[in-house]
């Protein structure tokens, strides 16, 4: 980081950063819930949406660079920007009406309670006619 020497923006870095698929997502089994976490630094709750279709949780949003900073002012640019979308297939059915999501310190945590298994009901058969 020296003042002189002009622009030293590393063109290889943004490609590498992009390949790191923002956001990185982790999926956990916490017994009665599945927990999905995603790293979304600098993203506000109104800048993304979360949807559940069947067993698929989709996160979609965008992260925009500060428009007041001209490209040539960057000496280093590694952080990914632009639209992103991730879909996660959950291993079993979810109680869709009980999903909770929080965003704190740039980390999204989604708690997805597993749907209760429909209990197997035994049907008694009685003889008739005799």
């Amino acid at each position: 980081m020296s003042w002189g020497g002009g622009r030293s923006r590393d063109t290889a870095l943004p490609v590498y950063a992009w390949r790191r698929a923002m956001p990185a997502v982790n999926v956990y089994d916490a017994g009665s819930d599945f927990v999905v976490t995603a790293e979304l630094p600098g993203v506000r709750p109104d800048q993304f949406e979360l949807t559940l279709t069947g067993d698929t949780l989709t996160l979609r949003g965008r992260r925009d660079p500060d428009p007041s900073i001209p490209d040539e002012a960057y000496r280093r640019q590694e952080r990914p920007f632009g639209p992103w979308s991730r879909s996660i297939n959950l291993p079993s059915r979810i109680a869709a009406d009980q999903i909770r999501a929080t965003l704190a310190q740039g980390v999204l945590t989604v708690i997805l309670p597993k749907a209760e298994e429909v209990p197997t009901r035994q049907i008694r058969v009685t003889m008739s006619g005799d």
Partner: protein
Amino acid sequence: MDDAHSIPVRSGEVAQSGRPEPAGLPARRPSSGTPARNLEVRSPLVDIHDTEAGLLLEADVPGTSEQGLTIHVEHNVLSLHGRVESTVPESAKPLDQEYQPIDFQRSFILSDEVDRSRITAELRNGVLRIWMPRAERGQMRIIQVRAEDH
């Protein structure tokens, strides 16, 4: 060492319920640049750009709170360490892990043109911003060399 100091971090985080500090872990080590936990660390992605007043460094440190962040300047090296606290219960079994929720650590070499005494930092929604003002001309040390005639 009087050339070493820590930079206080302002929090720009929107109000939310604070999580308690895990027991047994030091909240902060202002007098040391070493990590608070002896675990593997990862390097945060950063942008650095020029501003009118100097340089602005922005680092993605998701999962790090103001209390878990240490920024330290010693000589010409600025180092940052962010402790990452998991939001997932310890008993939870990972099914698919694309990232390791481990601490962040990275160091930068500062040029002489940064006024090290006026560096400030702010943390907001998992993004750390460090402002490094340009040293004013009057503050630059000029070392005079006197020729001695023999």
